[in-house]
């Protein structure tokens, strides 16, 4: 068994990270406070890990916050099970649904929908903590710079996989071009359908012959 200290450390770090981020988005904290008392159980299948996110609103400050637990003996509002990759997709992709990604949902799906909505609308004002450290004006300058850099990085990262894929197929000819591959895949599918049809016809023919033999 893993040393419980490590697991407690993981839970504490996750809890601090979530609540620190929430502190700089009062709107999301207000929405979260309305879900106080609800518990989301997350069972990751790959890697294997279970955690319970307990929503509370009695922190002495305005708005809700989240406690992370490795065990929970009370009621669970919603339980989700699936791989870590599927959960990341679920959080990132606006159109993703648990069913599409193979994530099993037990209990109330309303809590999941509301949490997804809060996460997608999360707008953390990073300038606020910065301003406390270095003052309003430098924080704004830095914030603008960081936003520009982040936007460039997002574009660059978004374009990178496409550029790499083009280089691999078009320039280096290591993989077939997409159109060629798709045509090949369609041919394979048509061939497979043809074989299936032939198999069905043969089976029908065989059953007719068998029936005639008996008569």
């Amino acid at each position, binding site marked *: *068994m893993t*040393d*419980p*200290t490590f*697991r*407690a*450390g993981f*839970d*504490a770090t996750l809890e601090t990270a979530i609540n620190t981020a929430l502190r700089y988005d009062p709107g999301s904290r207000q929405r979260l406070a309305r879900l106080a008392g609800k518990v989301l159980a997350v069972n990751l299948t790959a890697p294997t890990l279970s955690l319970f996110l307990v929503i*509370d609103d*009695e922190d*002495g400050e305005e708005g809700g916050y989240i406690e992370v*637990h*490795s*065990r929970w*003996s*009370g009621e669970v509002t919603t339980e989700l099970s699936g791989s870590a990759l599927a959960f990341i997709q679920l959080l990132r992709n606006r159109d993703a649904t648990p069913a599409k990604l193979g994530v099993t949902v037990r209990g109330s799906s309303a809590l999941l929908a509301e949490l997804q909505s809060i996460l997608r609308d999360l707008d953390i004002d990073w300038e606020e903590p910065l301003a406390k450290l270095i003052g309003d004006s430098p924080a704004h300058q830095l914030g603008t710079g960081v936003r520009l850099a982040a936007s460039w990085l997002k574009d660059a990262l978004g374009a990178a996989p496409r550029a790499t894929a083009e280089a691999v197929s078009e320039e280096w000819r290591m993989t077939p071009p997409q159109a060629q591959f798709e045509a090949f895949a369609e041919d394979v599918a048509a061939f497979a359908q043809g074989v299936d049809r032939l198999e069905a016809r043969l089976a029908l023919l065989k059953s007719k012959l068998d029936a005639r033999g008996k008569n």
Partner: protein
Amino acid sequence: MTERKTTHFGYQQVPVEEKAGRVADVFHSVAARYDVMNDLMSGGIHRLWKRFTIELSAARPGQTILDIAGGTGDLTARFSRIVGPTGKVVLADINASMLKVGRDRLLDRGIAGNVETVQADAQYLPFPDNTFDCITIAFGLRNVTDKDLALRSMLRVLKPGGRLLVLEFSKPESKLLEKVYDQYSFRLLPFMGKLVADDADSYRYLAESIRMHPDQETLKGMMSEAGFVDCEFHNMTGGIVALHKGIKP
């Protein structure tokens, strides 16, 4: 001539009736800087040990919880939130200085309403039978003069099915870790005590009392002997600390 019964106080043997007073002096001395020293001595890891204790307590809203040797109220604060307005947490400590620091800290954090503070000796708990759903004693049992008596007292005030959690320093699992830990405890710890709290002796006592405390299996046996069932322990940070759990049948 009759021989006086003695017990250990760190590595010294002292008359049984003197131990409580000597332990009290140590904690009167360290109370004001107890939290700072805890963070410094454990590198903040004591918070993770306590966090795991809370997880294993399975505390729920509406329950009644006793935090013995609750010191500065770390566990009480967390329990207070879990049991909510319908539950109750009793913060108990034998030492008035520690209790005062704990009570003030809880009030400063706005924790009130479902918390009571009681100055009590773990050996003679001043509560009716079958009162609590859960009892925790974190880093307190090794300072109790008669541990068996204290365990029986805790069993008495627990409700049937209630659980006792003992968080305490214990014996490291590996020899190498034990050596490193010894060097740390007997060289660095008193030095830090001197530097931060200007009190090397108290911190030397803390290190010695840890070595005199029963190891994991012995404490588990003592809990079974006292009447607890389903006794088990979880080693943490290589056995430097262990969390023992027992259920009142």
